[in-house]
């Protein structure tokens, strides 16, 4: 076969179907939007029940995380996420799923070396770089305020 890697790459790109964005984008928008609406509804409900704004926000997040974890355990979350894409990945529910899924998957290797050690295998980078970014942000804010 007389073909360079470059030519092969072009052939591969030509033969590989692209993601059908006209289908995936609206689905992500609606399913992600639905999760956010659910969050807003929960927040309104908790405020209606007498919680102050700060507490209502926390309890809303906790409720969403709980349902995401439950649906992951019931093997339903991945079926929703298959259609939801970024719509189920970006909200806090996606983060909960990314922690619970490996925790359950690696249970067969034990609670220490399996569940606990592998729990953050997907979410770990988000936590690490989230913390680093927040520290950098804090330093920048401190310097700006010092100058101002």
């Amino acid at each position, binding site marked *: 076969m007389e073909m360079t*890697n470059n030519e092969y790459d072009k052939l591969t790109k030509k033969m590989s179907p692209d993601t*059908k964005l006209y289908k995936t984008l609206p689905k992500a928008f609606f399913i992600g939007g639905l999760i956010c609406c659910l969050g807003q509804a929960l927040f309104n409900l908790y405020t209606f029940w007498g919680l102050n704004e700060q507490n209502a926000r926390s309890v809303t997040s906790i409720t969403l995380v709980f349902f995401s974890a439950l649906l992951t355990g019931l093997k339903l979350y*991945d079926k929703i996420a298959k259609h939801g894409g970024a719509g189920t990945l970006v909200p806090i529910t996606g983060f909960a799923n990314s922690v619970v899924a*490996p925790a359950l998957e690696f249970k067969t290797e034990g609670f220490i070396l399996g569940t606990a050690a592998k729990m953050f295998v997907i979410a770990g980078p988000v936590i690490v770089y989230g913390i680093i970014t927040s520290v950098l942000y804090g330093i920048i804010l401190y310097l700006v305020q010092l100058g101002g």
Partner: protein
Amino acid sequence: MATLIKDGTISMNTCPSVSAFAAAVGKMEGEGPLANCFDYIADDVTLGESSWEKSESKLQQIAFSTALSKGNFSEKNIDVLFAGDLLNQCVSSSYGARDTEIPFLGLFGACSTMAESLGLASVFVDSGAAVNAAAVTSSHFCSAERQFRLPVNYGGQRTPTAQWTATAAGCAVVSPHGNAPYVRAFTIGKIKDMGITDANNMGAAMAAAAYDTISRHLCNTNQSIDNFDLILTGDLGKVGRDILMELFKKDNVDISEKHKDCGIMLFDPKKQDVHAGGSGCGCSASVLCSYILGEIRQGKLNKVLFAATGALMSPTIVQQGESIPGISHAVELSSC
């Protein structure tokens, strides 16, 4: 006695027989178009075991023991067992065979392992190194996902070029005498790396290897596509098949009428959501050791070139930025 023709192609002088074969598959594979051809269809993906790796071992054991009983063999009749799977250290195979007393050779050729093991078993039998040799391979969707990709319950999306690892196992017993199919020749694959780095496009990583092995086999045996009823690739899937057609087109050879791919045959692309098709050692093994070998035995297919394809992918090396090498081994089977 098996003789080297040239450049990796070995001719079998006695044409050993694939005297017995069997395929065991998971529930989803058992709902596909070849459902009626399988010897065993599991009710659930666990097969009653406590881990995915154990489930895969059990599937391999079922395929092996079914093939032995179909051919009226006992374990004592098998002189060597060639076994392989996708998992690290070939655990499905070694744990699947640990209760036997059969001399064991573990193989890794990724999804090409069925052709590799069948070819080696045939060389052993043809050369007199074994009277009866068995070749068995397996894969399991869940054990492969957790090793190569993400936990099964993680809510990720698969790309259109991604393939679905089959939960399946196939076993073939090669003997010096017996009914069709007969093994005529074996071409050992060469590693072909065309720089594909997308772990979700295995078809592209393997198509070049399939092209090399098929064309080399035809050239070394002085045959053309017209000599065959079927050119059967392992698990290129839709993307890999399209690339393979294009590669042959450049040589002015049209194989589209003669070509089929196990990855496309195992699942129903309309009803079953497997994106580009099936993959895994068990994919080509289960299609070969059920429908294809059955058709050859009945004389409905006379000459088949079985070229299983493997993407020799390691998540570690791919994360280091390396590309994915592909390989394809080919076994020529005939009905007389």
